[in-house]
């Protein structure tokens, strides 16, 4: 699978990806600060398993949003925007398919909670945090 560039995503998915008129460095910094705070939440063992999983996923999403903002794009809140945000991030960070598959599996785990999946294993929390930490590091290096 080839990950589409932000320009391509804006052409293919105009309701989800919009080009910004101006580049706003502060927006990028805010998303990154939000991702760092979420990583802290995910690593805090006093938090419940589902809360830590949600926080780990937010690290991935906020990293993607920072990258989009840095590239002069933004994501709308239309249905499907999470998958598109992660795809754009995979392109910008030049992620392998295997790494992206793991990120996408975290996204799907988050979606399953709406079907009543409240059980979280220690392995899942650890893998989601590892995935979030590595993605955030790659994002910070890219910026």
């Amino acid at each position, binding site marked *: 699978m080839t990950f589409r560039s932000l320009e391509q995503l804006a052409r293919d998915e105009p309701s989800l990806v919009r080009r910004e008129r101006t580049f706003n460095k502060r927006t990028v910094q805010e998303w990154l600060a939000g991702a760092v705070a979420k990583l802290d939440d995910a690593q805090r063992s006093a938090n419940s398993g589902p809360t830590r999983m949600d926080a780990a996923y937010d690290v991935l999403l906020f990293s993607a949003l920072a990258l989009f903002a840095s590239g002069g794009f933004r994501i709308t809140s239309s249905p499907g925007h999470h998958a598109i945000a992660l795809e754009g991030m995979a392109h910008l960070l030049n992620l392998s398919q295997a790494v992206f598959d793991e990120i996408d*599996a975290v996204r799907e*785990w988050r979606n399953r909670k709406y079907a009543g999946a409240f059980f979280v294993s220690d*392995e899942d929390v650890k*893998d*989601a945090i590892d995935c979030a930490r590595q993605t955030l590091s790659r994002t910070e290096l890219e910026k």
Partner: protein
Amino acid sequence: MNQALFSELFGGEGRLKALRLLYSHPHQALPLREFAAAAGIDHAQLHRLLKRWVAVGLVQRLPRGRSVAYRASDDPALRPLILLFKQHDELVDDIRAVLPASTTYAAIIGSYAKGTESAQSDVDVLVVANASEIKTNAALKPVARKHGRAINAAVMPAHRFRSLVRERDSFVLGVLDSPRIELKGEISDLSKS
């Protein structure tokens, strides 16, 4: 699938290909020409086989205007054939190949196991293992891409499965009461602590 063994069991390679196509997709009705192409067997040979199989009730003949389509029989006595062929389907083999090493039991559940799925239906898998659901689902993604359908694995350790049985959890009871395509282990072993 052990092709030689199954060919012998079903009386030849052509018969095996035709029966596998019919019973791996029991709700799919195929016209003769399309059927022959999909199974990769000779049109005339298939016609002869279908004529005999319709006569004995192994296959349903469905008139469609001027043409005719063929589908697996819905006789409940033949259900084991569906499970047998699905058990050795390429998709099933591919899923089995990427299960976590710690898997003690795994099965395909839901519409695919019941034989009521459409071509777009997700394939649901239960994996009992000391493994991460995220890593397991990530490992299944190449299989999902290869076969063009989503695969969702629910992963849990054996002690959790047993406690859900005791709590009469609806998901686990549904698994126990419904058809499954076994990938690894025996479900009866899970009740032994």
